[in-house]
């Protein structure tokens, strides 16, 4: 039986990061993954990541995947794909299904990084073809270049539902609505705002009553629920859709950890059944670690750090790094992890979170939470909004960032220091009115939430320019006309495209500048091609 120093199950962000850490310390590592492509969910994630530079913020998930892979390869990590691990047996032995054969491997240490699986919501008709998981939609669109359907209903307003909803738009599908039984949008407000301004309606406090169709989905009946989740009679709406996409949460894929007899706990904060781990990720089965979503549902950026921590702990345990070295690295990684767990979406009891105010005391937009977009009148008070009295100077940035999300690429993007995230990484960015904006557009393309716009109210008498991030195909031509939409996706009227900037540094986020009547300058946030 082939023996490795370290076997990692799952080539996603957590597994690859653990492999890179251990291999960089000199360990011999093999990674198994059942998929055809490595990277776990990263290759399906085409949006830019949140976080700070060290968390690979503002990079797109699939590019992070490519980098991790290259790094792992350069370090001599073996990555065995299309290799489904069938079980973990005594003495850290695993059996793997490879090319129609079963192979056995043994290791001194095992890292389980199998990720998560989607929770599903049963409703009448949920077995009809056309009802799919959000992950299935992502797989079809972003790995295989196939639209899952023409008209889609998204069930669930968490980050997965919002992000996949946006990807559906990018793939050319029509997103008919996002619904959620909860009264508030579950994911980042900025993700919701991206959808809302293209005209996608949000039905909060709505649940799916049934999927309609005989042989496959041809529609969905939804209805409103009251505060105790009871259906409200007469509130039914019918949506003509061919695809119903479920994004109602993730749960850790803990099957393999259980075959390894790891002690488990049911932890709602971690998304379900997880193995009980120490601070380095080691389970109750000595030498077997669990990292990433399988150890508790979080973002990919947290998973990567957890992977590094386990990789370092194993390297230390097996004599590849000194205790001092390990302590230093552990503290560094732990700090980085704690940063990501900060904020209102962080790794803590959501029930106790304040839904009225940010940590700094700004009022949270209730409209954002209930409709997916901020009302124009709610915008004023946030520190990223350029005060009216300075707007006559020329171009200024408008940062519509109103929630405590651990993220700060905007600050790094502005070479002139106009944007600052002071204090905690979750603090809202503020604009410095004393610095002149050069309209380079880098803040616009760096914001993973696409919440930064450049406005110039001095464009021409009665006209303003509004520069928006734009990630759709085809890119409109300068001079072409279309509709300016406000945050709710409502048409304000005609707008003209002044210019479309796109460069390698912008990483496929174009900056589209449109000319609009000056009174729309703080309203127009999307451009719709005629």
């Amino acid at each position: 039986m082939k023996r490795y120093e370290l076997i990692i199950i799952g080539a996603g962000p957590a597994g690859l990061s653990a492999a890179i850490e251990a291999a960089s310390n000199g360990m011999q590592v093999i990674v198994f993954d059942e998929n055809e492509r490595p990277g776990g969910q990263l290759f399906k994630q085409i949006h830019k990541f949140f976080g700070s530079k060290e968390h690979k913020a503002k990079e797109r998930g699939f590019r992070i995947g490519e980098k991790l892979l290259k790094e792992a390869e350069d370090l001599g990590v073996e990555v065995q794909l299309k290799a489904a691990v069938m079980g973990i047996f005594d003495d850290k032995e695993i059996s793997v299904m490879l090319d129609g054969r079963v192979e056995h491997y043994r290791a001194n240490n095992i890292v389980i990084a199998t990720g998560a699986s989607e929770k599903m919501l049963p409703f009448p008709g949920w077995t009809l073809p056309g009802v799919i998981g959000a992950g299935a939609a992502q797989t079809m669109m972003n790995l295989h270049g196939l639209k899952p359907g023409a008209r889609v209903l998204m069930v669930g307003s968490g980050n997965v539902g919002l992000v996949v909803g946006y990807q559906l738009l990018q793939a050319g599908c029509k997103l008919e609505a996002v619904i959620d039984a909860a009264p508030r949008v579950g994911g980042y407000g900025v993700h919701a705002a991206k959808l809302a301004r293209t005209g996608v309606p949000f039905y909060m406090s709505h649940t799916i009553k049934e999927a309609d169709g005989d042989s496959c989905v041809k529609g969905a009946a939804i209805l409103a629920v009251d505060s105790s989740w009871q259906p409200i009679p007469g509130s039914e709406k019918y949506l003509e859709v061919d695809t119903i996409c479920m994004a109602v949460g993730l749960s850790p894929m803990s099957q393999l950890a259980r075959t390894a007899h790891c002690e488990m706990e049911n932890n709602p904060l971690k998304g379900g059944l997880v193995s009980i781990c120490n601070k380095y990720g080691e389970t109750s089965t000595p030498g077997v670690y669990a990292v990433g979503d399988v150890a508790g549902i979080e973002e990919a950026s947290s998973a990567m750090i957890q992977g590094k921590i386990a990789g370092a702990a194993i390297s230390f345990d097996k004599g590849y790094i000194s205790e001092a070295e390990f302590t230093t690295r552990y503290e560094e990684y732990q700090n980085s992890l704690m940063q990501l767990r900060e904020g209102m979406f962080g790794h803590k009891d959501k029930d106790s979170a304040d839904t009225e105010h940010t940590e700094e005391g700004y009022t949270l937009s209730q409209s954002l939470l209930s409709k997916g977009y901020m009302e124009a009148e709610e915008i004023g008070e946030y520190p990223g909004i350029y005060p009216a009295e300075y707007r006559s100077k020329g171009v200024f940035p408008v940062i519509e960032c109103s929630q405590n999300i651990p993220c700060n690429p905007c600050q790094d993007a502005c070479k002139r220091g106009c944007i600052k995230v002071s204090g905690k990484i979750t603090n809202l960015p503020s604009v410095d009115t004393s610095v002149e904006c050069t309209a380079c557009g880098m803040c616009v393309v760096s914001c993973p939430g696409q919440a930064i716009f450049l406005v110039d109210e001095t464009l021409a008498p009665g006209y303003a320019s509004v520069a928006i991030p734009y990630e759709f195909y085809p890119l409109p031509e300068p001079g072409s006309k279309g509709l300016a939409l406000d945050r709710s996706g409502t048409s304000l009227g005609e707008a003209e495209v002044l210019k479309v900037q796109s460069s390698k540094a912008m990483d496929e986020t174009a900056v589209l500048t449109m000319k609009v009547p000056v009174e729309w300058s703080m309203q127009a946030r999307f451009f719709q091609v005629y």
Partner: protein
Amino acid sequence: MQKKEVIIVGGGVIGCAIAYYLARLNVKALVIESEEIGHGGSSRNGGGVRQSARDPRELPLAMHAIRYIWPDLSDELGVDVEYCQEGNLRLAKTEEHIKILERVIAQGISLGLDLRLIDQQEVREICPYVSDEVIAASYCPTDGHGNPMVTTLAYYKRAREMGAEFITGEMVQSILIRKGKVGGIKTNLGTYESDQVILAAGYESRAIANTVGIDIPMQRTLVEALVTDQQPYMFPQMIGTAASDFYGHQTKHGSFVFGGMTGMEPYGSEVDNPITRSITAPSICRAILGYFPAIGQANIVRTWSGWLDVCADHVPILSKVDELPGLTLACAFSGHGYGIAPAVGQSIAELVINGNPTLSLDAFRYDRFQPKS
């Protein structure tokens, strides 16, 4: 706490069956199970309901159960226990195998069992899917199989409806003695009083009996089983082999359930939680495909393992303990308890209530073991 009429330790097929037959005699037992209903061997066996190749002492129990209880059990309990009486084939590939079968057959016939050796052609007629390597088989047309997990739960359900009490997740640790007789049991959470305690807890019965100085000569052995996805119906018989390398059947659902051993079991892990070993499922599969090549495309969806409570002479202990009135043993089934469970349940219930079961249990006494010389 109110004194219980009878306490049964163990919520497997034996414990649940005893509780049911006691309830039929208007005795409401308390069953205490440390895990969940059917956790032990009852959810870890091949489901054979057979008389062939039984020890002569056990055969009367098996014949009685098959003649009088199994055919109507589903109706009686109100749950389909998937009993299928389409015969048992014990397959042979070599002359050596045939010799083994001949011995078994002679013994069965002498006890009045319809059991015979059939040749390759007849095996094919009964079961067309056997490989060319199969040259003969023993055939017992009145044997069959059932679903052990459902049977256990069906006994439990019916007994519960008839007034038996069940507690799961509580572990019996010792037997209490009051004035020279059984007085009840002590668990990890408390004590329960009763004049009658029946130990039907598989291998765990040994440690509990030890607390009152009674030893049961048994060992635990790991066995493993596997189940496939649903397959087209191929054969209804219970299958075994003269070489004893696997056993199993196709279930009513269409999936195949097979069990077997590698020979390495006695040297396995000391962990109490039974684990599957990486070598076992492949070994069982090789054995099966040697006899039934046509089912190679069936997908294994699950493997599992469990402990057998193997008695020194491979026959269970079904007995009152004379020197400690109130203690009854029903354990050490050695891997063939399921098929006889209805007869055992009925007999133990009668033994406890009136000391005089319809079927004699004399051959299963706890004090039958003697040194060699």
